[in-house]
């Protein structure tokens, strides 16, 4: 055995000459936590009593979600006139909020799929939460296109959104980017849900067994139903890992495709400021940027509340900040590139649109967007900032705000000032839109609180694979 690791004299001479820097792999689970400790820690949250703060937050979230219920009920019962939309800005908060929430979803898929394929082991402790964020934000996003037409039944009747035979003899228009959206978002939602669920099956099996031992037949039965007979045999693991890998492959495509298709809603039109080829990569990087900011916004409090310092280490936060920095800088690059292309393209309408964005009626929105999205992430260049969690939290809130304003700027400024000066207008939202959008944050946090209470929020089985104990060399292998 020992002969294998013995280093020959010549190698030692080379090493002495090269003098490689010591760059140890970061430890992903601190304090050499045992597998049993991890199980106790994660299952303990579900098995313990519901804490008071949970009830308080849940009640507040439900009340906020009620704003959406009221807003949508009023919209459906009265008609789309209750929103502030009017020609020329016939699109506004409905699609802004849709793109905002869909964008946030992307970070979850990137963390769980792309980082899985590239073997970034630090993803293990955060992917469950990130993917929950994906699913919950897709749910929030889906509310807007489904309800914004006022006639909600059209969203489910065959022939309107979904192609199926119907008494009207009509069929969706497959040349419309909006129809592509229907398929992109539905595919995304279902793949994410399956991915999330498949990853959770071993952990659900653990919960089933633990509740069974305590004699809690009801909970054991419910977790057991969803664990689908998981026994943890080698055969199960082989199939599970293959399924997970395949889903990661599909999910990787989704990270790039979904927001590209969402950007086609604009790019395939002829409105100045929308009709640009930069849109797909611009939207994808924006989406990942906003998503990582939201992941941080959620992880930092979660880490503090549940005392997950051993799972979500400073290294994890550091990695997330670095990706946020890259994506934020890409977004800033896209902002500047839009100007250069507008100038270089020499199209007067395009040129006017960008000057109007920066110095026109909506300049306040543009500068909120610019400072939040371009300046804020630049703080992440500094190690000191990346280890100051309170400051990171504040920065991510600014990014969330900035990314909402990005969509507002793109959509509203272009529509309010299009080709015909005679039809120019100024859009401002009605109270109904504001309440509805505000309410979706309640829906989002409500779903998250339920997730915190009833599901294993740290993927136990995955985290165990990156502990020191799981390493045959005990972490001493260099």
């Amino acid at each position: 055995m020992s002969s294998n690791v013995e280093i020959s004299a010549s190698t030692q001479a080379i090493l002495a000459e090269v003098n490689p820097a010591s760059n140890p792999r970061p430890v992903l689970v601190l304090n050499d936590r045992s597998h049993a400790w991890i199980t106790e820690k994660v299952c303990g949250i579900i098995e313990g009593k519901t804490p008071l703060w949970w009830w308080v937050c849940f009640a507040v979230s439900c009340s906020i979600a009620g704003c959406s219920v009221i807003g949508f009920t009023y919209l459906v019962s009265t008609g789309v006139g209750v929103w502030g939309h009017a020609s020329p800005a016939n699109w506004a908060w409905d699609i802004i909020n849709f793109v905002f929430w869909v964008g946030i979803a992307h970070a979850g898929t990137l963390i769980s799929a792309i980082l899985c394929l590239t073997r970034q082991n630090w993803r293990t402790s955060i992917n469950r939460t990130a993917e929950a964020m994906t699913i919950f934000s897709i749910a929030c996003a889906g509310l807007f296109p489904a309800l914004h037409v006022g006639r909600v039944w059209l969203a489910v009747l065959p022939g309107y959104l979904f192609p199926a035979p119907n008494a009207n003899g009509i069929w969706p228009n497959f040349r419309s980017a909006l129809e592509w959206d229907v398929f992109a978002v539905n595919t995304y939602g279902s793949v994410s849900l399956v991915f999330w669920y498949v990853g959770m099956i071993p952990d659900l099996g653990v919960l089933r067994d633990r509740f069974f031992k305590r004699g809690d037949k009801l909970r054991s039965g419910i977790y057991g139903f969803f664990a689908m007979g998981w026994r943890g045999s080698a055969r199960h693991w082989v199939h599970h890992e293959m399924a997970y890998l395949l889903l990661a492959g599909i999910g990787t495509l989704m990270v790039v495709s979904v927001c590209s298709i969402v950007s086609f809603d604009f790019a395939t039109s002829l409105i100045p400021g929308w009709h640009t080829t930069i849109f797909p990569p611009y939207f994808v990087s924006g989406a990942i940027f906003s998503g990582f900011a939201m992941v941080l916004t959620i992880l930092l409090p979660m880490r503090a509340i549940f005392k997950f310092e051993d799972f979500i280490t400073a290294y994890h936060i550091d990695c997330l900040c670095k990706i946020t920095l890259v994506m934020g800088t890409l977004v800033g690059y896209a902002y500047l590139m839009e100007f250069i292309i507008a100038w270089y393209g020499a199209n007067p309408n395009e040129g006017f649109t960008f000057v109007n964005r920066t110095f026109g009626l909506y300049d306040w929105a543009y500068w909120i967007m610019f400072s939040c999205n371009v300046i804020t992430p630049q703080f992440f260049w500094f190690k000191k900032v990346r280890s100051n969690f309170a400051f990171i939290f504040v920065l991510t809130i600014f990014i969330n705000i900035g990314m909402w304003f990005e969509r507002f700027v793109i959509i509203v400024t272009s529509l309010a000032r299009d080709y015909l000066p005679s039809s120019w207008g100024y859009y401002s939202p009605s109270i109904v839109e504001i309440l509805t959008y505000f309410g979706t944050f309640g829906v989002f946090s409500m779903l998250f609180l339920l997730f915190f209470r009833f599901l294993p929020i740290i993927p136990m089985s995955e985290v165990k694979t990156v502990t020191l104990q799981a390493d045959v060399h005990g972490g001493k292998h260099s």
Partner: protein
Amino acid sequence: MSKLFPKSINLLPFKLLAYAAVVGGVATAGITYYATPSYANVGYAPVQPVPFSHALHAGQLGMDCRFCHSNVEKSGHANIPTSQTCMNCHNQIKTDSPLLAPVRDSYASGDPVPWVKIHIAPDYVYFNHSVHIARGVSCVSCHGKVNEMDVVHQAKSLTMSFCLDCHRAPEKFIRDPKLVTNLDWKNPEGEKAQIEQGKKFVHNWNVKPPQSCSGCHR
């Protein structure tokens, strides 16, 4: 874990799939059959104030549709005849039939006979009779064999897909405009000849039935 779930639960996913297929299939079939206008509207035959028989007038006596519905070639709306039209003949025939009393009253007072409308195009649909008649769409295509009905009923579903079936393939239906009121006419040389002839008509008369939303929902 044998105590938690019985072995039979292994079949549960398949059972659920089977149930979902059965319930989904029954629901789809039920809605398709019972909840569409072809079920809900076809056969609507309200009681009219006068038991006017189209089978007698248009069928047995061979009166042309346009004798009474006289504006159908010129107007978007196919008019219901006034009682003066009825009285053209009925001041000679069956002058004291009690069944015709409402017609005579209407003729005397000037108030119309309160006929009950059967074929109703919703107010969000634009439909023009004259253009259909002028391009050889027979009455029978939408109203059925009225010349055989004692009491008129709705014969066709008149759903949007019913309209579109013809708008998408007019050659299957259009004929020489001289024959539009001949409800018994069918191309004597069969369906193939109908389509061939129809295609010629479509080409020669430049028939372009609208299929866009705004063609009918103006």
